[in-house]
């Protein structure tokens, strides 16, 4: 009957209960919306890092390769036997379940891209052709980074019949003075331009062919011809000005190597990344391989992800502390008034044999019921607000980001549940503080009080 008694006592002071529940509701709604935004950004950044920045859930480098592969590629890249062993170990760890979706080698390098008249630096990432198509259609990518999923112009690496087809960042496309319409049929055949003639320079805008040049792993100079088949957004404006995705074999040809700078392992469940990385490290060590293994949220491989999320979590925590504090103080205030009004009632219950903890539990139940009502109302407000905000498709351009981003609130049931639990606990604690003094008073003093 104590829950019944608690509910009826709340109903007895309808206005006070409503005001308290509303305060809790606004706190819950505020927390939920803030958490929803952080949740959205966290997933956006994580998916961007894993899929669009190609770290995978677990990255494997030659020992010291993360720092030194760029300057000493011959020594600090993964050899074909490294890659074969990695595939073998990944299969072994994954046997019996579908933990590993893909093991993908990447070859990173820099060089110069030329359109015949102009030369621009590029930063290339070579990958298996079918990987890029798989990545762009992955459910996580489509869910969290739909703006980046599809190429902006043309087709992705696997969408063209050209063996030398490359996809460049939007910024690099512009720097190479290529016209976007060359991807929709306005292409001209390759020719040797006279760069002093404006007509030739104009014609170059519709020539999909470019030349890639660089120093190879052995120090030799390499050049390959490539065909522009598409343009994409990396998510970062600075990166877009130089990024280039190419078939792995094309870059291997350019750099004169069969090695890979790193390999990324894509798992079906991101939460398994740390345990997978640990197990892989142990097995690699046992097999005599000298590798460095990184989980996707390691600051060494994902400094942008880690930095952004650290800032967001700190800001979110500050907001949470303020809102939780306000909600707790509201409960404390309400229960203090309630207790002082029902002092004689407490004395009567004690005279009937109710112990101090029985009385405390009664008031805590009232607080919990009030909080539960407020929390439910708050979640309803949060859902309504999130629906309205998301439907408005409010877009903004964060600093350094190549494209606009939709301001989205993604409410997670588990986060909402956690908020309700935390507020429930704080409310119960506030009630204990409010009740403690009165409950510990002598019964005779409670009975002689003028309160209620």
């Amino acid at each position, binding site marked *: *009957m*104590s829950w019944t*008694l608690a509910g*009826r*006592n709340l*109903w*007895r002071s309808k206005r006070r209960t409503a005001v308290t529940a509303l305060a809790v509701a606004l706190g819950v709604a505020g927390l939920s919306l803030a958490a929803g935004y952080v949740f959205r950004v966290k997933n956006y950044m994580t998916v961007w890092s894993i899929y669009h920045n190609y770290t995978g859930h677990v990255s494997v480098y030659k020992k010291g390769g993360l720092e030194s592969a760029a300057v000493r590629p011959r020594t600090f890249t993964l050899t074909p036997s490294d890659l074969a062993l990695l595939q073998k170990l990944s299969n072994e760890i994954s046997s019996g379940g579908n933990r590993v979706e893909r093991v993908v080698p990447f070859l990173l390098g820099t060089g110069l891209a030329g359109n015949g008249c102009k030369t621009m630096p590029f930063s290339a990432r070579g990958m298996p052709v079918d990987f890029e198509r798989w990545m762009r259609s992955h459910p996580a990518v489509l869910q969290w980074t739909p703006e980046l999923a599809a190429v902006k112009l043309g087709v992705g690496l696997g969408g063209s019949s050209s063996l030398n087809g490359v996809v460049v960042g939007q910024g690099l496309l512009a720097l190479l003075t290529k016209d976007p319409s060359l991807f929709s049929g306005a292409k001209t055949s390759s020719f040797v331009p006279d760069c002093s003639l404006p007509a030739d320079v104009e014609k170059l805008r519709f020539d999909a062919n470019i030349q890639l040049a660089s120093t190879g792993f052995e120090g030799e100079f390499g050049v390959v011809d490539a065909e522009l088949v598409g343009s994409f957004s990396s998510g970062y404006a600075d990166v877009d000005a130089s990024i280039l995705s190419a078939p792995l074999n094309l870059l291997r040809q350019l750099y004169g190597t069969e090695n890979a700078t790193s390999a990324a392992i894509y798992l079906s469940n991101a939460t398994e990344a740390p345990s997978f990385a640990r197990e892989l490290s142990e097995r690699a060590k046992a097999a005599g391989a000298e590798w460095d293994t990184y989980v996707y949220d390691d600051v060494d491989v994902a400094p942008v992800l880690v930095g952004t999320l650290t800032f967001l979590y700190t800001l979110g925590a500050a907001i949470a502390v303020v809102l939780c504090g306000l909600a707790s103080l509201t409960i404390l205030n309400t229960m203090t008034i309630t207790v002082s009004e029902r002092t*004689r*009632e407490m*004395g*009567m*219950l*004690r*005279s*009937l*044999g*109710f*112990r*101090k903890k*029985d009385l405390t539990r009664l008031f805590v139940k009232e607080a919990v019921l009030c909080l539960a009502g407020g929390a439910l109302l708050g979640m309803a407000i949060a859902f309504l607000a999130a629906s309205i905000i998301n439907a408005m498709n409010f877009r903004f351009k964060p600093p350094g980001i190549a494209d606009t981003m939709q301001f989205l609130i993604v409410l997670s049931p588990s986060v909402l549940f956690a908020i309700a639990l935390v507020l429930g606990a704080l409310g119960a604690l506030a009630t204990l503080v409010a009740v403690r003094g009165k409950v510990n008073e*002598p*019964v*005779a003093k409670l*009975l002689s009080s003028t309160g209620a």
Partner: protein
Amino acid sequence: MRTPDPAGAPLLELHGLRKSYKLGEVDVHALNDLSLTLRVGEFTALVGASGSGKSTLLNMAGLIDEPDEGEVLLEGVNVARLSDDARSLLRNEKLGFIFQSFNLLPVLDVGENVELPLLLRKGMSPLERRDRVDQALEDVGLGSLKKQVPDKLSGGQRQRVAIARALVTHPALVLADEPTANLDSETTHRIVDLMIDLNAKRGVTFLFSTHDEKLMQRVNRIVHIRDGKIVNGKVP
């Protein structure tokens, strides 16, 4: 009312009780070496001027306050220094309280108010509780008002509900602090009749404070208290 057996077992024994309170800067000696013995079946009135120590004595007997010195024996067991939880348990099992201002919970109906002390009896089933409540309400003549809320009852009816609540646990001793002070004379008469009836037929032992002279005429023992001491505890 029942005539108690003077040789019967003592139900309540108060030995050498002392109790002081601070009223601002002044020490008030509410009980001053007070001793009293109450036997089973007694229908006893505590009489004295305001501030004589009646309420304090009832608080000691009801285990809702602790003496500074002295012993409180309930059915032969010294209960003065028990833990708070132990005293709460004893109050629920052995004692019943009737208050001057009824002290019913307005959010519960009559039946639920009477049921309150039984909620603490862990071994009691809901059916048993219901039966006890029904019996208690029948005893006080309010069987038909079980679903009524206290706000809709008269003063006399509310006090009957309080009496039913005090009796539902089948206590050894019922304590009442000025139970008829807020009632008109006709209602007072009916309430006193009820209490006497319960004492006579059910053997419930009553100890209550009163200023009502007509009530004093109907008890089998009057205890006069003055300045925290018993001055006359004889049977009239």
